[in-house]
């Protein structure tokens, strides 16, 4: 009896801790704008992101980088860093999750990536082509960090652009600071994934595009 209670305790304790381990807080803030890229036939080919980092992380990222002029960095000088960025992002699935009519879509490796440095902050530009173009009635694109190490926020102005979308397509953006949207998201996600450990998804930015 004691032994069993003991292992029960141990298990419960381990689970308490594992659950708690998700309680990280963001160390990096990203202000994002995203463009959905459409082909001529109206199918979606990919996503182009522009992510602007906060000044603290920007200072960290450019630490030790060589530049001709002190305090400024050209696109070329930032080239290797951009390379590192997109390579590292792979592990996190680029923090970009797409579902076409409810079906998960995958992305290829990023193309056309570069960094620019303006007003002491870095912006990472990159394009994520879909593995295969899709032409769904509804596309849901979510941008968030599961572990909430990075706090993604869609830009205030023109956060999402549909590039070459067929007429009649409607875009809706649910920001995480909209309490009702988050709650809905949580329920839906919980339902769809069958897991509720995705703490960061409460902070997801959800872009929904409905096309006729």
């Amino acid at each position: 009896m004691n032994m069993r209670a003991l292992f029960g305790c141990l298990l419960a304790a381990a689970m308490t801790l594992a659950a708690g381990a998700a309680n990280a807080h963001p160390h990096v803030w990203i202000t994002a704008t995203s463009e959905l890229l459409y082909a001529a036939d109206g199918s979606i080919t990919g996503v182009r992101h522009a992510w602007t980092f906060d000044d603290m992380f920007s200072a960290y990222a450019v630490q030790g980088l060589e530049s001709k002029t002190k305090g400024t960095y050209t696109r070329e000088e930032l080239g290797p860093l951009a390379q590192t960025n997109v390579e590292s992002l792979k592990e996190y699935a680029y923090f970009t999750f797409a579902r076409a009519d409810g079906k998960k879509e995958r992305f290829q490796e990023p193309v056309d990536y570069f960094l620019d440095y303006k007003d002491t902050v870095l912006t990472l530009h990159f394009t994520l082509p879909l593995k295969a173009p899709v032409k769904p009635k509804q596309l849901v694109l979510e941008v968030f960090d599961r572990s909430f190490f990075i706090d993604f926020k869609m830009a205030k102005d023109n956060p999402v652009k549909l590039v070459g979308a067929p007429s009649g397509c409607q875009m809706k953006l649910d920001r995480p600071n909209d309490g009702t949207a988050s709650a809905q998201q949580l329920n839906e996600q919980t339902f769809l994934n069958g897991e509720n450990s995705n703490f960061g998804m409460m902070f997801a930015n959800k872009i929904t595009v409905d096309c006729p």
Partner: protein
Amino acid sequence: MKPQLSPLARGLLACAAVLLVVGVADAALHHLLAQTPFGAPRPAQAADSEAGGLIGWLLAKQSEFYRQMSATIRAAKSDGSAVWTLLFISFAYGIFHAAGPGHGKAVIASYLVANRETARRGIALSFASALMQSLVAILVVGISAWVLNATAKTMCKAEAVIEIASYALIAAFGLRLVWVKGGAFIRALQVAQPVPAIAGVPHDHDHGHHHHHDAHDHDGHDHHRHDHGHAHAHHHHAHHHGNDHVHDEHCGHSHGPTPSELAGPGGWRRGFAAILTVGIRPCSGAILVLVFALAQGLFWAGIAATFLMGLGTAITVAAIAVVAVSAKDIAARLSAGRDGGGALFMRGIEFAAAGFVLLFGVGLLFGYIAAERTTCF
């Protein structure tokens, strides 16, 4: 009299106490703060769900303080008084941040429980490990960024190496605890067998305590008669101090060679492993703040901020440590029953705490448990 129910009830109560140790170790602030009717000052949280609400609040607070740091460091360039604000923010951030993962508070709490440590030592350990954590962060940034002008990529690699080393250390530390505590537990199991024979002898409440000494001093050999002498001889003593650990130190008992290295008196030497294990891994936040401060030409302000963060962290971890030790003492009191199972149960709890450290380290090492990520990307 229901001999079946009593151990069950005791077991449940003691289990609750253990859970309290870990639960508090992990989420003390969350729950505490949940009681207070604070609103949701920051939008980035789903206030609807209970967990989201309180975790969100905690996160929001940390984020708030953390985000203010860069602006404050910038301000400090032109306005010296902003440094005071920076120090305050860092301190507050440290307090809140330590309630999150990655600060080894679970390791400290488990270590304290496993080793029957005093609350005072728990506080000392918390402060020492937080200080070490601050120093490591300052050294990492000082050497790599300031002296060598290394890039973020290089620093990140260094961080990653330290991280793996720290996880391995936690696992090794846990393994060692398991080894020692497993031995004590098995000995307690062996001792527990003949106990029912003398269970009828009326005991006082000190039962659990004297069994501590039993497994401790005599390596669990059959010394029952001797044990009783011990229990009575030290009965008043224990009550004077109200705490068997203090009693341990004061009486200067000679401890068996096996547990003595970890559980016997020996000042800092014994806690050093815990300090090293917990303190070797710097906090990502501190590294970012330091590099940012360096980039602003205010490295010293970053260093000051890092120490204040450490101080804040230490206070939270120390509070958790005290709660852990108290909860364990409650468990000890609850389990000090009539049939001698109490000692076994306490050995079991210590063994479980040791196992927990091991599991935690292994989990971190192999990525089953996500800790605070390093800033690599």
